């Protein structure tokens, strides 16, 4: 376990570990609003909404990931971000996300259209913030 100002972060999707490593800060979007996590944060279990997760690793550039809902748990300087589907910004096919966004906006009658719009937007935002 790190002893300076580090957090052990894991970004986990249902079928794989998307990213894991040491980081100094994590910012995620919860149901109540954005939450920023530094070392020695109090234990929190919170629901995430479709959005962008920002991880500042100890070395290297900031990492952006798009998550489809899920939740965040913080305890003992361990941060786990769980989402059924999660993508890092460099894995996102932005053209496909844009096409998906358009098609979701086009048939706004469908039940899941709002979800699809939010998911596609989260992907596009993660991509744009990273570039």
């Amino acid at each position, binding site marked *: 376990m790190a002893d300076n100002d580090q957090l052990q972060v*894991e970004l986990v999707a*249902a079928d*794989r570990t998307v990213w894991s490593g040491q980081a100094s800060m994590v910012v995620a979007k*919860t149901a109540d609003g954005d939450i920023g996590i530094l070392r020695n944060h109090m234990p*929190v*279990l*919170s629901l995430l909404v479709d959005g962008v997760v920002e991880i500042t690793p100890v070395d290297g550039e900031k990492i952006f990931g798009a998550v489809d809902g*899920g939740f965040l748990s913080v305890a003992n300087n361990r941060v786990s971000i769980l989402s*059924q589907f999660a993508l890092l910004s460099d894995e996102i096919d932005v053209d496909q996300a844009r096409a998906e966004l358009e098609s979701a906006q086009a048939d706004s009658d469908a039940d899941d259209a709002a979800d699809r719009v939010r998911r596609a937007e989260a992907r596009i935002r993660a991509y744009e913030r990273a570039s």
Partner: protein
Amino acid sequence: MAVSLREYRARIKSTESMKKITRAMELIAASRIIKAQQRAQSAAPYARELTRAVSAVATYSNVDHPLTQEPENPTRAAVLIVTSDRGLAGAYSSSVLKEAERLAERLREEGKEIQTYICGRKGEAYYKFRDRPVVASWTGFSDQPSYEAAHEIGTTLIDAFLDKDGEHAVDEVHVVFTRFRSMLVQEPTDVRLLPLEVVEGEEKPENGDVLPLYEFEPSPEAVLDGLLPQYVQSRIFFALLQAAASELAARQKAMKSATDNADELIKKYTRIANQARQAGITQEISEIVGGVNALADAQSGE
């Protein structure tokens, strides 16, 4: 005589090509099984974290959730049977189906009505042939299940469970799948999925013992609401992954014994063919000798 020799040769040839096919299938299954195990491994962190979170919520708050409530008088049960899409896997599908029959028998004895949900074409065919009703079935992913599939199945089953008066409303949900113990042992098992019992994971604290005191955002109820369906889906995903690994292991085993049997058969046919060839030669010789003798007798008689 010559005809039967040719027949044997043809049989040997076809057995040989069959052996090539089964051998190839064995190798394919063997390589896929490694991938299936890797998939199961990479799905493990999610399941672990999820279980931990669920037990944390369950420990710290006494929230009653519809998904964990035991119905007072359960009369209807849903059974999800996980079978394979393709055959040639030995007794894999039939032993899952047998297990499902046993479970159904037990549930019926408890006075419960059964609604069947099926994964995999083999189970679907089995129920169709016997003309039994199936509420829903999913096919096409048995050897490499995706999380999307588990998500869809989970949503359907949760809806059925939460539904109180609908046509397909149920009071409990069971899953029958094959647990992958090792390459040699796969056992069909049934587990009750709903109402939920959180079994694995963080131990409940003894009195006075402290676990991190989580703050729940927005509220414990809302967190539980979000977590439990995902937990159910991850359990189903786990069952599908296990079933996939078991299916491949069963197929590898079945194909291995098929290859061995083909070897045996080829040996046997080769022996018979050789015998037939020798018998043919012997007969020809004796025919020639007999002919020569007859000729000599006729000449000496002149």
